[in-house]
């Protein structure tokens, strides 16, 4: 690696789910902020081990659904009762009952877009470049290895202290990732 690159952080590798869990607890307790755990599958209990707050995706779903049902009902009222009133069987031009199925489908549709869109937005995806991919071993993060990365941007980051913490946490392999 050339010297023009900047240090991104330290990447530690672990072999088992239990190892990475204990390591995450240690890093959390040491008070780091800019760090993350990379695993091939979601590990149950890892959010607590990392001290993460509850995910906010639900709000995106909720507002998607609210927009969906509002737009659905408005569309039907505007089209069948206002812009071009159609009388069918002498019944009222608009009723929330007959318009429910379509408005309901609109709710589900926009709530689903809200969930996926909210997840991508909160995760800042799609992301076309990520310095962590410069590590050749990191390819195993989707296969069978577990990684923990602490960014150099973290206020508590120190080359020696952080490395020692990762070593004590039981990592078999620690490497420096450069951007």
């Amino acid at each position, binding site marked *: 690696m050339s010297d023009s690159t900047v240090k991104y952080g330290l990447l530690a590798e672990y072999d*088992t*789910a*239990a*190892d990475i869990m204990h390591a*995450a607890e240690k890093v959390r307790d040491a008070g780091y902020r800019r760090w*993350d*755990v*990379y*695993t*091939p*599958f*979601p*590990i*149950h*209990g*890892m*959010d607590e081990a*990392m001290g*993460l707050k*509850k*995910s906010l*995706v*639900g709000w995106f*779903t909720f507002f998607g659904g609210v927009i969906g049902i509002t737009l659905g009902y408005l*569309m*039907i009222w505007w*089209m*069948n009762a206002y*812009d*071009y009133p*159609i009388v*069918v069987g002498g*019944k009222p031009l608009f009723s929330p009952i*007959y*318009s429910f*199925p*379509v408005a309901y*489908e609109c709710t*589900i*549709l926009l*709530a*689903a*877009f809200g*969930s*996926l869109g*909210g*997840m*991508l937005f*909160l*995760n800042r*995806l799609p*992301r076309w*470049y990520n310095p*962590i*991919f410069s590590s050749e071993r990191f*390819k*195993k993060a*989707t*296969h*069978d290895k577990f990684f923990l990365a602490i960014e150099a941007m973290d206020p508590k980051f120190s080359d020696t202290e952080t490395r020692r913490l990762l070593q004590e946490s039981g990592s078999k392999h620690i490497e420096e990732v450069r951007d």
Partner: protein
Amino acid sequence: MADSFSKELPVIPSVPKELEREPLVLNKRPIGWISDQISGVAEGKTPKWWWALFIPSVAITGVCFAMIVYLMSTGVGVWGLQIPVAWAWDITNFVFWIGIGHAGTLISAILFLLRQKWRTSINRAAEAMTIFAVMCAGIFPLIHIGRIWLGWWLLPLPNSNSIWPQFRSPLLWDVFAVSTYFTVSLLFWYMGLIPDLAVMRDRAKSKIRQIAYGIFSLGWTGSNRHWSNYEKAYLLLAGLSTPLVLSVHSIVSFDFAVSQLPGWHTTIFPPYFVAGAVFSGFGMVLTLMLPMRKVCHLEEIITVRHIELMGKVILATGSIVGYAYGMEFFIAWYSGNPYEKFVFMQNRAADPFILGPLWGVEPAPYWWAYWTMVSCNVICPQLFWFKKVRTNMWIVFVISIFVNIGMWFERFVIIVTSLHRDYMPSNWAYYSPTWVDIWQFVGTFGLFMTLFLLFMRFLPTIAIGEVKGVTPQADPHHPMGGAKGGHH
């Protein structure tokens, strides 16, 4: 911390051998093996069996489109439908395909909410099946409308007549239900694919594969901050898909139930259609999955236990369907409505051998369709009460084919027998399909198989990350997950 915690737990006596659950992935395979085995299907040289299936499927897809062109250029008269049977094979096929899709959503959403971990081995392929089946289903109402070039009038788009769709019609509800169902199924499927596309990206040897999987995996790293949002979104999508799937087939059943026709005008239709849809869908899942696990060597991930559990779902839903048939029949008799009674007895059930002579009526013109339906949907799945049957892959495969046939006949019976003899005997007619009807239906199987084979060749057929997540290695409190001291 973990060790002090485990001391407080009561000692659980070990489970006797006969009560132990079979693991979801056999032979204690390491988690890396799961990626290798599943992605292996979509890597390396294209196998011969794939070409042997793909080429005929593409040819039959060609037939599908040729029939559409013939229909469009000539008119709906090329089909056998004629007043009074104005809905026939087209709508039968539509309901058949859309019903098949429902098993995919049941597996991916409802079984997820019920925390049925075994779903992880089959949900990906079942969701793919859903999407392709809905695509096949969508063809039929569209080409059935006659002037296909005006199909966009179904959508709330401004047109030169300044008129809007009429939202009181269940047929329009169907447009919204089916298109929402397709879109949401696609979103759910794609979201499930993102982590697995990242697996494919990280394994890719060629530049093209790296770029293609790289783009579609959106830069997924497996970060736990991402997993946290991802799992929440997955749960919410499952929660949204569950009422969606129930609404879709309810709305499909409204196409019939909201009308006044005897045989269609019944309140039992929504739940009965949903149960039938799940039943038929599981039939198709088994029809696809049994050969797939064999040719792709996935028997250790889609185990006999998985097949057995699907057999039990078929047994349960098949029994619900059987109950619905019986209840429909009972209500037709109990209502005292002569038209209702006529449809069920003299349009459907009166066979020339037993019931016809017993009731002293002429045999029903479609008695053979009715009794094919009953044998395939009610009698045949009852064999799944026996473990020997559920664990014999050949018998399961044969029964799954019968379920597919039976459920196609169910829709045919509902639609054609109700229409062909309604109130006025002067209006009666017998419906038979033409060769165009038949090839149009066969053609959609070609399209379905083509899409499914492409899916098998280019995407992970099983949710890799999810299967890894249900192995003991994924559990940080299990010895195989690296836990020290404690045991479960």
